[in-house]
């Protein structure tokens, strides 16, 4: 028997699904940019990076669709299917997101040893299967995984000292903070609201970073032509 639980206060229903859809859209744009680069270079690191963001897109789509259906934003559903939608929707979101974060750790920390990658993947099994709450395990693991990704982006920013690596670092810092706030959602519903807003802000900064990358490469061409 699955305990169906809608998160957050009543007035926030619907907004969460929209913010999750926004995250999915941003992740899709990052995946698409990585795909274009992979097509040009044929380097595996871009393919893995793209894979990570494709998984993240699917994960957020699953979550947004599940929340929208459960909150009955689009249509009414019978109580018999509510449990199934809740279970499969959230499990898809959790598994896809965790694998995406793992791939991101492997890419950002440039881990090449297959045994270490396998170990990371295997840590997911007891963490999820032996846990009393998928939801809490997921956000606990997400916080840890994303903290490692954020650390890699901080080190990259320190090395490069440019605006776009800074934006990427800020974006992942916000996304990590959001995961930690989700952990306290059971204590106070407002934590769910602030977590959703922080996460959306993180993905918005990521979208701005992507836009800045595009603008910066266009800018250089114009300057050179003027000279």
């Amino acid at each position: 028997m699955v305990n169906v639980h809608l998160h957050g206060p009543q007035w926030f229903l619907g907004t969460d699904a929209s913010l999750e859809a926004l995250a999915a859209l941003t992740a899709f744009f990052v995946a698409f940019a990585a795909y274009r680069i992979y097509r040009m270079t044929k380097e595996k690191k871009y393919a893995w990076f793209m894979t990570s963001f494709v998984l993240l897109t699917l994960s957020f789509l699953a979550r947004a669709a599940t929340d929208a259906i459960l909150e009955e934003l689009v249509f009414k559903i019978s109580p018999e299917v509510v449990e199934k939608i809740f279970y499969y929707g959230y499990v898809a979101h959790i598994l896809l997101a965790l694998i995406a974060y793992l791939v991101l750790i492997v890419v950002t920390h440039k881990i090449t040893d297959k045994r270490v990658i396998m170990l990371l993947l295997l840590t997911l099994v007891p963490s999820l299967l032996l846990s009393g709450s998928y939801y809490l395990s997921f956000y606990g693991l997400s916080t840890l995984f994303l903290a490692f990704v954020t650390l890699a982006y901080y080190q990259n920013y320190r090395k490069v000292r440019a605006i776009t690596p800074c934006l990427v670092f800020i974006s992942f810092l916000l996304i990590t903070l959001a995961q930690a706030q989700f952990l306290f959602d059971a204590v106070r519903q407002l934590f769910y609201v602030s977590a959703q807003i922080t996460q959306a802000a993180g993905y918005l900064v990521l979208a701005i970073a992507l836009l800045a990358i595009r603008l910066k490469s266009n800018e250089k061409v114009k300057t050179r032509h003027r000279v």
Partner: protein
Amino acid sequence: MKRSKLDIVYDMLRAIEEKGGKIIPTHLLYKSNLSHQRMKLYLEELKQRNLLIETHTKDKTYFELTDEGRKFVQNFKQMKEFTQAFGL
């Protein structure tokens, strides 16, 4: 650090772009930092991929950037920015 094939292609095309889209072989040789033999090989490939064309005036030969060549330079710059931003 050893340049990749893609880096060499970018350096050559950028050198042409910086000269206003048209360059003479001697300048290209100097700017791309390659031996004459290797530059000839690269030029052949770039012509085959339609990234540049060879034109002749009365006494001079030029290499001109095609629209596809310009697009390649643009995409490569975006790739560099993306790689730098995400530390890849």
